[in-house]
């Protein structure tokens, strides 16, 4: 049998390859390039091996920022997931209240991130902000520019305000898909409100809840815009997360080599955590059957 070879197919995938090359591979290789070289200007580069990676992994600055990231994500999940579930459970299931609640819930999600930052930056100011002045008038010492605790509180409250809606909407979608017969069966069994939540609503929300946890974890772990606008990473370095630190290093100090190494490490952390979540999610899926 004679076979004809036809390489035309390569032309068909070429646009995609070019696109991916420009959007992902070339920038990424630039970063890799910077991360293993040193420069003293004049576009002269010297091989630096893994020195930058060693520097990054040995620097307190990196570990402190990573620690702050993890603490921030943990706090965000601990607040937003239960709060989101609670709100979703108490949202109306039918009637005119449904569209009203859904629109109200969706509103924070529709605001651009830097605008959210600006809103809270102004809102919390002690001289002109509604929140800041009210607290000052009430005799509460609140100043997110100087006090680290206040700065953390501000960005946590801001993130909760901005993103709890997402958890609510996902959970609500899970809740409304539970057939009414489950609740009737539970009533006939005489199951308590807690049992209904624990044995019917929570398992039935399981899938969407995992998605909510994943999304909120990744998002909060990569947070940049809002704290950058509100606190700029301060006071001191108290709210300097990995992303903010990275930008400071790369653009502020123009330490391109260490910054490149750090962004690769950051990228690998995000990638491995995503993989962990993905694995956990799919395993959970298999456990629960089809």
């Amino acid at each position: 049998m004679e076979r004809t070879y036809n390489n035309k197919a390569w032309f068909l995938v070429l646009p995609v390859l070019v696109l991916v090359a420009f959007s992902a591979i070339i920038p990424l290789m630039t970063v890799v390039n910077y991360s293993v070289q040193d420069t003293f200007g004049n576009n002269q580069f010297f091989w630096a091996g893994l020195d930058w990676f060693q520097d990054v992994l040995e620097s307190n600055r990196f570990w402190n920022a990573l620690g702050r990231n993890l603490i921030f994500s943990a706090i965000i999940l601990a607040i937003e997931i239960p709060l989101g579930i609670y709100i979703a459970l108490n949202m109306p299931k039918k009637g005119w209240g449904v569209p009203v609640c859904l629109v109200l819930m969706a509103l924070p999600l529709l605001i651009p991130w830097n605008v959210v930052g600006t809103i809270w930056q102004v809102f919390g100011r002690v001289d002109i902000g509604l929140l800041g002045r009210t607290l000052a008038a009430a005799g509460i010492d609140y100043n997110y520019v100087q006090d680290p605790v206040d700065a953390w509180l501000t960005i946590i409250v801001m993130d909760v305000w901005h993103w709890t809606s997402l958890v609510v909407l996902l959970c609500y979608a899970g809740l409304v898909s539970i057939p009414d017969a489950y609740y009737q069966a539970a009533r006939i069994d005489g199951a308590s409100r807690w049992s209904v939540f624990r044995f019917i609503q929570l398992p039935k929300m399981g899938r969407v809840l995992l998605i909510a946890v994943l999304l909120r974890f990744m998002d909060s772990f990569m947070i940049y815009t809002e704290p950058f606008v509100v606190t700029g990473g301060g006071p001191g370095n108290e709210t300097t997360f990995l992303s903010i630190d990275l930008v400071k290093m790369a653009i502020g100090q123009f330490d391109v080599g260490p910054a490149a190494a750090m962004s690769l490490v950051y990228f690998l952390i995000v990638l491995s955590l995503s993989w962990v979540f993905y694995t956990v999610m799919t395993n959970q899926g298999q456990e629960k059957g089809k």
Partner: protein
Amino acid sequence: MLELRNITRTVGAETHIDNVSLRLERGTLNVLLGPTLSGKTSLMRLMAGLDRPTSGSLLFDGVEVTGVPPQKRDVAMVFQQFINYPTMTVYENIASPMRVAGANRQDVDAAVQRAAALMKLTPYLERTPLNLSGGQQQRCALARAIVKNAGLVLLDEPLANLDYKLREELRAELPRIFAATGTIFVYATTEPSEALLLGGNTATLSQGRVTQFGKTIEVFRRPDDLITAQTFSDPPLNTIVMRKAGGQFLLDDGLLFPVPANLGEIVDAAYTIGFQPHHLSLARTSADSVALRASVTAMEITGSESFVHLRYADANWVMLTPGIQSFVVDQQIEVFLDPTLLLVFDGQGRAVTAATRLAA
């Protein structure tokens, strides 16, 4: 005994249940038969206490239970969807009603093992319901109803979502399992054949009203009215409106049936004549059989029977006949009908046969 006295339930402007009175005895199997939205589920929800009647009262063993919430009633219910607690194992699911009731460990274990054996679930006790097939999931839900050992067991189209073979199997087992417990057993279905297979008593429902209640075979054979006869016939009851004059039912084209002798004296007027699809035949079944020429409008063939859709004058009929027939559409065929099998309904849809039977 469960007694419903003039139960009505309205939701907004809609009447879901319209003045229903029923007496269901202990140890009986009662079928609620009616099409979708006829009020079967609404009636069951009222019996379970999930809903409150707008008016009327419910008595259980002579005690008024109208406002009593379901968990305080002696009731178990199985739904059309397969309802089990998703994270609990089959064992825990079956045990759950007894655990809520606070039974001790040995009693629970004994009851669970017994119910699981009855429902052939013993090998699956450690699995969670979502790792079971649909039939096993529903058997798990049925096992939960069994261990509850309730005085009233409500099954709301429990087999509707199961495949044919499993349905046959469970339908045969269910009455036997629950009959032994002396419970009041209520079974809702849309299928007349299922009511006939289950036997017991049947209440036919139409638009929220119980049109007739009695022994299943009696209701099937001697419906009180046209609606009951239509509810209890699948494929649909064949009907034709005819004029009675003297001893005959007449149609303008010359078709005539002698008025069956058991009807006695009835006034000359227009009557609706009804008969089951299997009462039409391709050959004369008795000496009295009347021959008709009808045209074929459609053919449906199952493995062993043929449904021949016919048009006669203004009426559309279905003939159920054995064997595979090969008629073509628009073909004129001769069919036979035994007039002694006719159901006769007056202008208000009341059965004339039933009236005379009661009078006699």
